[in-house]
């Protein structure tokens, strides 16, 4: 038997339960996160109009750049203001 050392970050998370899917979007706030790729806004404009037709409220957000993770403050802002979020990648 050989013993080796784990080369990973050993941060494999516990399996997490998803938030229950809402029955309806009526009255819920949905965040739309634009990752700042070209034409992502055009795609999100269309998604927003569809969501509004379904009775949802929509908040729009934008990452400073698509090449880096969303800043912590932006993630907190979305989590505290929205019931659901759609992150959009268009290219």
């Amino acid at each position, binding site marked *: 038997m050989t013993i080796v*050392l784990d080369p990973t970050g050993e941060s494999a998370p516990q399996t997490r339960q998803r938030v229950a899917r809402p029955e309806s979007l009526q009255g819920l706030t949905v965040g739309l996160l634009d990752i700042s790729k070209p034409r992502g806004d055009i795609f999100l404009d269309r998604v927003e109009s569809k969501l509004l037709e379904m009775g949802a409220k929509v908040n729009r957000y934008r990452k400073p750049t698509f*090449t880096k993770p969303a800043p912590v403050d932006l993630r907190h802002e979305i989590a505290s203001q929205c019931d659901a979020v759609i992150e959009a990648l268009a290219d």
Partner: protein
Amino acid sequence: MRCPKWLGNPGTQQRRFTQQTPLWKSGPMPSDAASPATAPPLPEGLVVVVKRDCPTCVLTAPVLADLADRAGLTVISQDDPEFPEPANWVIHDSDLALSWHHDIDTVPTMLKVSGGVATDRIVGWNRREWEEFTGVDNLGGDLPDWRPGCGSLSVDPTLTDELSVRFSGSILKSRRVEIAALEDEWESLADRGWSDGMPVVPPTEARVLRMLEGTTRSPDDIVAIVPPDLVECTVEKVAVNAVMAGCRPDYLPVVIAAVEAACTDEFNMHGLLATTMPVGPVVIVNGPIRQQIGMNSGINVLGQGNRANSTIGRALQLVIRNVGGGRPGGVDRATHGSPAKYGLCFPEDEEGSPWDSLAQSRGFDAGQSTVTLFPGESPRIVVDQQSRSAESLTRHLALALRSNISPKLAMVFDSMLVLSPEHMSRYRDAGWDRSRFLDEISQLLMIPGDELVRGAGGIEEGLPAAMAGTPIPKFRPGGLLVVHAGGGAGLFSSIIAGWVNGATGTDPVTREITA
């Protein structure tokens, strides 16, 4: 433990000592719990550490008995518990803990002990020294005046791996993973997803402890927060991955500096990993460490064959993969990738260059060892076997550099030019230095906007129409990095194209290699 010979593991060598029993290993092995990680105290007073398998120790046996009688001596025997004789003044260092922790490298070693630690020591047999050290005269009148000692069992190359794991293994915090006897080690590591696809060296405790001898930093020091999972990476985790990549311990400081540089905000390793472009962290080494660890800056510098060149960049990539969790198909979204993403690392040929080095051009001294990380794809060649003047060669290199990433795009992507010695000789002959070269080539890389805008040349890709009518520099200021390396024959240079620069991409980062 199976250890391949090529790794230089001394465990495959023959034992040097011939005595059959009792060996320190012949009895029950001390359990890990019973093996102290800190030094056990030595007996007080005068102490001599010996082993029967040492002719000098055997020679001094009558002197040891004499000293026990006249001066009150304790003998610590490493192998035979009844050497030099069965006596209450003889202690058996059965697990070699005393010898290991008190740094006995020669037997006999005579110690003065106070408070459990040695305050003075002499080694070998030397009558005059022994008499002065003990204050006892007329020692060993029949013995020769002087005999050198033998190697201590605790530094026997066949035992040091096992002893280091036993006595120092507890400093390692990584999760232990058992590979069963019937498993193939390499298959097992590959199945766990810990490899870049090429074989990795199993990171056993002994190998990781040996690797850690390459740095003065503590194994639990945090080197960096590694993307994309943003995991704290210790010196130990870097060492584990350096073992897997095939590094020698003396490469470790270079790997550590490369990990630090890669995980800065300027270098943006997250974006570099996540991009669909075929780029990875290219590591350029400057300064004295290049020669100290035997890097190759000459023939085939960007290719295979030199262990340091081949494994340092790979170790960085394994840290990103294993510690950071950055894997192709996960956060790594490269459309094609490139061979450079296995790890591309090379040193600059500073000695053969008439110019200041890349690191010096970035503000470091020639005496400092550094890594510069550049976000690059695989190199490609520029052939120019006809230019005899610096002007002609520069015009040709500029033309080739226009196609860096795309001939229709400019400013957004950096580039690294690797000048060969024969191309550099054109600039040596012309008396051009680095800044003259960069000034000249920058002027040649001013491109009419009309040629770059969308639609120009019948190509829809390009710069916005507003750029028409204006000369556009191919590179931002400082966006062309130049290094001198390669074999002595070949009128070629190499271009390593970068990716998006600046705040939304990557800026090259230079870090000093310290410990």
